[in-house]
């Protein structure tokens, strides 16, 4: 078999792991990101400061470093306190990987969500409050449903970024796309075909997704022009 095709097929075996980690992580990221966005808009200063610190710390450090801390640093710390802790007892190395990816993308998504919320005319909140809705109710029923439509493309772009970022997870024991290629390379020494195969496997995921986002944006622009 052609070595390039072989490299591609081997890399593709990592697709389920990459997709699974990315999908679980984006769900965690969306939920926690929304919480962060709401905290950053809260009236209480403490919540605002905490949200800001979280976002700054996460965005100011590489995800690989965060992954190493979560996967190896945390167990070391707990063991130094006399607590016997191994990720393998809690579902394996995919667990810290998913946690890191999710809470990492939460920091980025919180900014996306915040900008979406802020893009909604303040008259919407006033109209909702004037009907007697609490702030939380107005957010849930009026503001967030409108914000979601605005942020959907940016949200999907973050998903594309996340898929690519998961490539660092090979360093913490997750056998995803890149790791498959590396393992094959170290046994076959087909270095160029191995990494080209890896690149193609990522493109198989990211390019259709990007195309779909563009299509959605064009459709929405047309719809808005017609209204």
């Amino acid at each position, binding site marked *: 078999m052609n070595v390039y095709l072989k490299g591609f097929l081997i890399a593709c075996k990592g697709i389920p792991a990459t997709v699974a980690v990315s999908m679980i992580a984006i769900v965690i990221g969306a939920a926690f990101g929304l919480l962060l966005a709401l905290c950053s808009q809260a009236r209480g200063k403490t919540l605002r400061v905490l949200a800001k610190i979280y976002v700054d710390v996460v965005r100011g450090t590489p995800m690989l470093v965060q992954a190493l801390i979560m996967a190896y640093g945390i167990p070391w710390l707990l063991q130094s306190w006399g607590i016997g802790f191994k990720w393998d007892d809690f579902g394996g190395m995919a667990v810290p990987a998913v946690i890191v990816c999710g809470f990492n993308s939460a920091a980025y998504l919180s900014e996306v969500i915040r900008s979406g919320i802020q893009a909604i005319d303040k008259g919407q909140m006033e109209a909702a409050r004037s*009907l*007697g809705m609490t702030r939380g109710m107005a957010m849930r029923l009026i503001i967030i449903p409108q914000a979601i439509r605005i942020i959907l493309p940016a949200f999907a772009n973050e998903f594309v970024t996340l898929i690519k970022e998961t490539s660092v997870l090979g360093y913490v024991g997750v056998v995803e796309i890149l790791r498959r290629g590396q393992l094959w390379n170290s046994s076959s020494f087909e270095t160029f075909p191995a990494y080209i195969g890896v690149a193609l496997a990522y493109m198989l995921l990211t390019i259709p997704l990007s195309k779909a986002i563009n299509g959605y944006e064009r459709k929405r622009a047309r719809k808005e022009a017609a209204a």
Partner: protein
Amino acid sequence: MSMIEIKGLKKSFGDLEVLKNIDQNVEEGEVLCIVGPSGSGKSTMLRCINRLEEPTGGEIYIDGELITDKNVDRIRTKMGMVFQQFNLFPHMSVLDNLTCGPVNVKKADKKEAEKKAMELLARVGLAEKADQFPRNLSGGQQQRVAIARALAMDPEVMLFDEPTSALDPEMVGEVLDVMKALAKVGMTMIVVTHEMGFAKEVADRVIFMDGGYIVEQGTPDEVLNHPQMERTKDFLSKVLI
């Protein structure tokens, strides 16, 4: 007891004093029109009544009950608000715009709320638009839906913040007609407006505001036809044709 009692209301935005010690009562069934130049504080006063603006000082009582941060959500359900920019919820159908308040705030039965919403839409002449989205309606239609949305909460008072100022001239009449009909059935209304004709025809009382004060008040005839204060005369000479 007055429906609304405003005592010593003050509002500042930073150093800018917008309302300077306003005292005012509004009686049940009364239609009060507030007129005055822009920046006179009339919209701010209206927005202070349902606490969309937090007053800097003073007290406001609705039905004898002092509005505080604690009870504001409940008291707001007694006051319908109509905005200059309509502020309909664009992601909901016209019908859902009307039912979302009663269903979520008052926990009304969905079917009941829809039945009542259809009655209200018929009252403002828009029953056939129930399934449309706000963006498909003209400005005048949107404002009539906004009035119906506020009425869906069964308010005791309706607050109108320049309800016709954002409308094309040919749509002003249809909105004013809905408001006139509302006044006729005895709704308590406070209307910030530039429509002097409407104030003359419908108001029980007119307030002229300028510079954060109530300069003059009385019947429409007294304030708009025979103003006593120079400031009022000056303003009216510029707006009345």
